[in-house]
């Protein structure tokens, strides 16, 4: 009987690990993130190609970008990554209260970032920079919107983690789930680190003349 239960436990562990001894879920998440690098790389490249062709039309000028406002959004998203690792550290040491505080703070910071993006889009549209104004504006909206969708999915997952913790269905035994969702959240953050520099900060007009 004891032997049978050991065998069952062993089988259960094996179902969560690859032959390399790695977690299937974590391996899957890293594979997803690797492919997402290519996805966002293609979108950023498309934006740069069309940037070179916008020909300084005033209604779609990158001068519309409000860098101080976006800098604050960027700072909030960066700090949300800090909140995520602190949430993970909390659940790994069985600090449920600390976990709930940090995971909710992270979701809140993600929501602030999204609200900022919606405000920015609204302002751009009022200034005449819409999705269909030119290929350049399409590339801008597709890139930033796809990132925004990723942030939205991340916020929903964070709120789900918080709700599961509140109902006692997420404990330190499930720290691997939190870690995998954390990986996704940090990826969303590093993509924005690149987008912020590539779109908002680099003065291409000085390069292209």
């Amino acid at each position, binding site marked *: 009987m004891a032997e049978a239960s050991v065998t069952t436990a062993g089988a259960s562990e094996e179902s969560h690990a690859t032959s390399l001894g790695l977690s299937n879920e974590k391996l899957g998440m890293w594979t997803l*993130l690797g492919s997402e690098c290519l996805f966002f790389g293609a979108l950023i490249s498309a934006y740069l190609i069309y940037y070179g062709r916008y020909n300084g039309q005033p209604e779609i000028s990158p001068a519309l970008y409000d860098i101080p406002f976006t800098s604050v959004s960027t700072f909030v998203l960066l700090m949300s990554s800090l909140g995520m*690792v602190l949430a993970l550290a909390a659940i790994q040491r069985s600090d449920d209260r600390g976990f709930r505080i940090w995971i909710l703070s992270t979701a809140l910071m993600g929501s602030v970032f999204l609200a900022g993006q919606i405000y920015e889009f609204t302002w751009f549209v009022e200034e005449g920079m819409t999705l269909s104004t030119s290929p350049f504006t399409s590339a801008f909206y597709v890139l930033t919107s796809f990132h925004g969708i990723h942030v939205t999915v991340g916020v929903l997952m964070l709120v789900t983690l918080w709700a599961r913790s509140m109902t006692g269905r997420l404990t330190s035994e499930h720290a691997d789930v939190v870690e995998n969702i954390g990986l996704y959240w*940090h990826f969303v953050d590093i993509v924005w*680190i*690149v987008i912020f520099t590539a779109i908002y900060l680099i003065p291409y007009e000085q*390069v292209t003349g």
Partner: protein
Amino acid sequence: MSDTDHEEHADHPDSSQYIVIGIILAVFTAIEVAISFASVPSGIAIPALIILTVLKFILVVLWFMHLRFDSGWFRRLFMFGLIGALLLYAAVISLMLYASGNQQV
């Protein structure tokens, strides 16, 4: 697991180290924004912005995503996608510079 692969969860940083990394990220972002507002020549500003972005990227990936402490397999998977994206990005930048050179001629 092979010897080259670190054991999962081994020696993860503690909360104080995470906070230090967070402060460094905030400082780097502030420097980036300051560079974009200052009248820095593009020959200096652009390399500086790229270096700061790469440093921020590396800090988040190695410490917050624990790639520094996790299995080498995860590193390889991520690097595969990242190198592909960087090659694509480099090709586009080269095309942009080539096209702008032709326009000036």
